[in-house]
């Protein structure tokens, strides 16, 4: 019998939710084990980087890479796993577009480190800040160095497929696992390189069961401030900035179905070049005012417009980061 194809999963700048989503496929995880030889998955098993380095190039059939590239360790591992893998999947929103860690691109990295050790609730009387190298009697020790900005995987290495979501929905992961197993058995073919997999081809609005009419918004509000909220009417129509119009379908509109606005974790819909720009267009088109003063007054209802339209997508957007994050060390 031929040896089983090899499978790897790695986390870079991410939270670990993607790994949980994979385990959340329930008994489907047994199919992974039955069909793959899991060679590297730091969350689930003990393996060392040197084990990966010792593997032959292209010897891992499938690598799910979650997390963005925040430091040199992430970058080296991304390049290493690219070399060792036949199919490299940017798995989850962080690897696809930066996700929540990508919002760090709003600040220079020095400010981020300073703030982390200097808030009013931080007890740091000797003003100790982390260093990336330290001398100890045994020699020099290193910890990874933060890069200026968070980068999605695609900005660092060549990526074969993208699977967005924060995290990707488990039923979508299960479908992709089934597909790959069918490919191994010769029953199916891989989608074209560069495809976004495990998703729908439309927007969250298309999957949303709420009723949509002509939207005329006089005031933007937070979801907790609309009471009583109408559970059957479009959330944007009720004045809450909902990111559904720009967001890729695939999640079955989970948040709107549960009574909350879409926050956009599935990333830009098919054909959308810049997620934030599409949302600016969507929000602007529902504003019911024609004078600059009145429009500005309505826009005041969105207190953090940049965070609102780039919540998951800043690192993968056209601008990628703020000016200060690019320029300062």
């Amino acid at each position: 019998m031929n040896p089983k194809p090899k499978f790897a999963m790695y986390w870079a700048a991410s939270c670990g939710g993607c790994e949980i989503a994979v385990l959340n496929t329930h008994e489907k995880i047994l199919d992974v084990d039955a069909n793959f030889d899991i060679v590297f998955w730091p969350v689930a098993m003990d393996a060392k980087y040197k084990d990966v380095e010792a593997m032959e190039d292209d010897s891992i059939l499938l690598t799910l890479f979650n997390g963005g590239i925040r430091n040199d360790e992430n970058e080296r591992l991304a390049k290493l796993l690219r070399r060792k893998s036949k199919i490299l999947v940017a798995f989850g929103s962080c690897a696809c577009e930066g996700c929540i860690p990508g919002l760090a691109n709003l600040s220079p990295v020095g400010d981020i480190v300073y703030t982390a050790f200097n808030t009013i609730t931080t007890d740091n009387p000797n003003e100790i800040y982390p260093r990336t190298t330290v001398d100890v009697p045994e020699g020099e020790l290193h910890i990874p160095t933060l890069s200026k900005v968070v980068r999605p995987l695609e900005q660092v290495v060549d990526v074969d497929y993208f699977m967005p979501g924060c995290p990707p929905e488990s039923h979508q992961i299960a479908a992709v696992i089934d597909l790959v197993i069918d490919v191994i058995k010769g029953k199916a073919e891989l989608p074209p390189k560069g495809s976004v997999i495990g998703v729908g081809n439309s927007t969250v609005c298309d999957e949303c069961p709420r009723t949509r009419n002509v939207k005329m918004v006089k005031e933007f509000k937070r979801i907790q401030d609309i009471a009583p909220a109408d559970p059957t009417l479009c959330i944007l129509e009720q004045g809450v900035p909902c990111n559904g119009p720009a967001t890729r379908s695939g999640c079955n509109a989970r948040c709107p179905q549960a009574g909350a606005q879409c926050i956009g974790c599935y990333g830009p819909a098919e054909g959308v070049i810049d997620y934030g720009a599409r949302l600016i267009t969507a929000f602007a088109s529902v504003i019911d005012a024609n004078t600059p003063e009145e429009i500005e007054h309505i826009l005041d209802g969105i207190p953090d417009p940049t965070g609102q339209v780039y919540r998951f997508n800043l690192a993968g957007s056209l601008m990628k980061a703020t000016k200060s994050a690019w320029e300062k060390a």
Partner: protein
Amino acid sequence: MDNDHFEPTIIGFTCNWCSYRASDLAGTARMKYAPNVRLIRLMCSGRLDPTFVLRALSAGADGVMITGCHPGECHYIEQNYKALRRYLLLKRVLSGLGIEPERVKLVWASAAEGARFASETTLFVEEIRKLGPLNWSKDSDQLSVISDQSDNWSLITDNSSEEVPA
């Protein structure tokens, strides 16, 4: 760079029915205005996707001028109001990204206002000249913290090829 010697690159979006004709009029009337603006004709300012502005700024433009018909005079009834709303929200997003919102300007100019188009263009170029170059970073590679791209730094010090655990 000395801002007095800096020639800004400006992308200008014009509406087919009014501001493009205004620029045409400025040209046929031989009015002089700053040559820094590169005009792109759209059918309407309502066609202006904010993506165009972001693409221009991220690809090297120092400023973007959006022009259209005066409010109430849109060839497509009310699309210039949509352009106005997008523009106001876009400016807020841009300032969140550390870009001076003054780098994007909305100018209304009817087909008869060639002189206004010319003077507004010259004024905008001077405003951008004062702000200085935007110099948006385009290259992701320069962000690598691995200083030497060819370095052989290994993640491990012991390179003995042990058996890979199954």
